[in-house]
């Protein structure tokens, strides 16, 4: 296994794909969170004068609205680790290096396991890069205002890193399942960028949270939302649920999560588990298909 992981790392490092995909990742992570950060700054400045918040005893300038820029920046940038994973096995099938890969490994199960470990590590690398760039983009976009404290930052960025490596694993599984680079890339992109966002408009919120994209967004979005809600809670003396009433509270939670880019998401750890399950399902299917496939 160790030998094959070493081989997989060499495969990645002797070609240009890893940094070829990292460049747009960096650009998009920074640009997106910068843009959202700018938006947050103008919205924040707009509602600062609003009476309703002041009546609740909340000073808007202390709210870390910037968490939304973090979670949305992460969610969009995870497209690239997903694509990187999707090409992990399918490009070997496409270039027919898979023959040699199988001929030099004890069996296919070990090949895909080594790839899974390798690509999870690379998902981590992408995740760390994305986290750093999203943090920088948010800080620059909001002009240093509305930012969460260090703990909040870290929590969202950790959720983002976790999301990245799960996306990489899911991509790897889809690539192994389809066995085609074009098929895997097109399918994943169309699904993540078009199908699910459009479906989200028609589906019930509770369903959306269980879809792969929704669950992944929930992982970071709910973390961000939770930070903001905890903060709101700490600023008032009575529990907000009591102030608002259960129904309004649920609506409010939803609004916060939608603002964080996670429609219909559950708590961050539930969304995380749902997304983990999706990644495991697709990786499992890829593993199964890979065992059956005749390499001709």
């Amino acid at each position, binding site marked *: 296994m160790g030998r094959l992981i070493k081989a997989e790392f060499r495969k990645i490092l*002797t070609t240009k794909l890893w940094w070829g995909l990292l460049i747009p990742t960096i650009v998009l992570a920074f640009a997106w969170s910068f843009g959202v950060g700018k938006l947050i700054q103008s919205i924040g400045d707009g509602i600062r004068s609003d009476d309703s918040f002041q009546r609740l005893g909340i000073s808007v300038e202390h709210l870390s609205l910037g968490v939304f820029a973090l979670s949305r920046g992460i969610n969009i940038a995870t497209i690239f680790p997903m694509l990187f994973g999707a090409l992990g096995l399918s490009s070997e099938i496409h270039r027919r*290096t898979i023959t040699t890969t199988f001929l030099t*490994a004890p*069996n296919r199960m070990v090949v895909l396991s080594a790839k899974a470990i390798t690509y999870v590590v690379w998902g981590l690398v992408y995740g760390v890069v994305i986290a750093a760039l999203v943090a920088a983009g948010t800080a620059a976009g909001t002009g240093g205002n509305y930012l969460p404290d260090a703990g909040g930052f870290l929590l969202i960025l950790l959720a983002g890193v976790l999301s990245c490596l799960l996306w990489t694993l899911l991509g790897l599984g889809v690539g192994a399942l389809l066995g085609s680079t074009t098929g895997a890339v097109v399918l994943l992109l169309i699904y993540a960028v078009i199908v699910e966002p459009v479906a989200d408009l028609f589906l019930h919120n509770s369903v959306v949270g269980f879809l792969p994209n929704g669950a992944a967004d929930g992982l970071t979005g709910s973390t961000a939302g939770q930070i903001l809600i905890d903060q709101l809670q700490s600023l008032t003396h009575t529990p907000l649920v009591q102030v608002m009433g259960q129904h309004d509270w649920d609506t409010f939670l939803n609004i916060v999560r939608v603002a964080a880019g996670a429609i219909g998401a559950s708590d961050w750890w539930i969304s995380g588990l749902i997304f983990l399950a999706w990644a495991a399902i697709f990786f499992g299917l890829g593993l199964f298909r890979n065992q*059956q496939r005749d390499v001709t």
Partner: protein
Amino acid sequence: MHDGSGRIVVQQLTKQFGPVTAVQNLSFMVEPGSVTGFLGPNGAGKTTTLRMLLGLVTPTTGSALINGVPFTQLGNPARVVGAVLEAQGFHPKRSARDHLRVYAAAMGVDDMRADHVLGLVGLGGAAARSAGGFSLGMKQRLALATALLGDPQILVLDEPANGLDPEGIAWLRSFLQSYAKAGRTVLISSHLLAEIEQTVDQVVIISAGQTRYNGPLDNLRKSQQARVFVQPSDANALITALREENISNVEQLPDGRLAIGGVEAKQVADIALKAGVSIYGIEEERVNLEQLYFSLTNGQYTAQGQNPYGGPPNGGGWGGPPSGGVPQGYQQQPPSGGFPQQGYQQQPGSGGFQQPGGYQQPGSGGFEQPGSGGFPQQQPGYPPQQQPGYPQPQYPPQQYPQQQGYPPQQGYPQQPGNGGFGGNA
């Protein structure tokens, strides 16, 4: 774990791709210490068989064992068997050295091996170049270098001569022979006997997914049954005289000559002299190995039995086509004594030749030039003078049969469902 014998055993292997049977009940054995040729026309199932042997394709039924176990149980397979397969790819942007270092890591050999094998196959100077810029021949060498990386006991090569220049083929030949002499196993496939005739000691000949012959090439060579063409003053007198000597394998040709099987020219001349028949011309026919191979891989021949030309075996006609008779004998008693030929004669697959293809009536003037053998229809695509000289290094590349590509419809019967596999074209 494997037994380290270096033996390859293929047992009743069958592969069905949807409705198409690529390999049918194939059995043969490959022993270490010699180069074994794996022969068959394009689409015969060679590539599929080799890929099943290497665990890349799952057999429908049967098994293919290396050192007594399936490929996936070899542990670190690349240290036991190295393979050069067609359609084996390289990342176009990865250098040859990096390519080898990837797989050196996978099989756990020292990185130094990468440069060592590159030198071995003559790519030492191209180590830093991307494989995408390589010629076909260089890719073949790089594939061979990859196969050699693990210093394997067994080498399996699928059509390795494709794309190699004459010098490369000569080099490969001597390399493989010395590899086998060191007690290792070499299995090399080809669709051209001439291409590997000088390389191999043993041959496995398959056609339509079934084994036709499995044994030493020398036995195949010795089986070349020659006929004698003679122009007598009195054909009937000579036939009668021959009958008295128990020689009944005589065919009267349209041009008035007699074709006599199973005798030497000297014998015929002596009998004629004794019978008082003058001889105006006498010639010995040599059936060449390629024709023998051809008849072995032609399903129609074997399916229709001894005498597809129709004449009764002993009734004045000649007793069957010269090379047609030989494979019959082989199928019943494989000289190798090794593998029984799995009853393919009963298989429907080998009986499916509707059109006679290259084989027509003997009366079509086919024996006008005895030197060219009994199958003139094959000749256009396959000039006989190319065969002996082919593997010689000094041979100009454009005269390679495989590079010219003879039209398959001349050489091989049109067989439904048999053309799609193998990927050798």
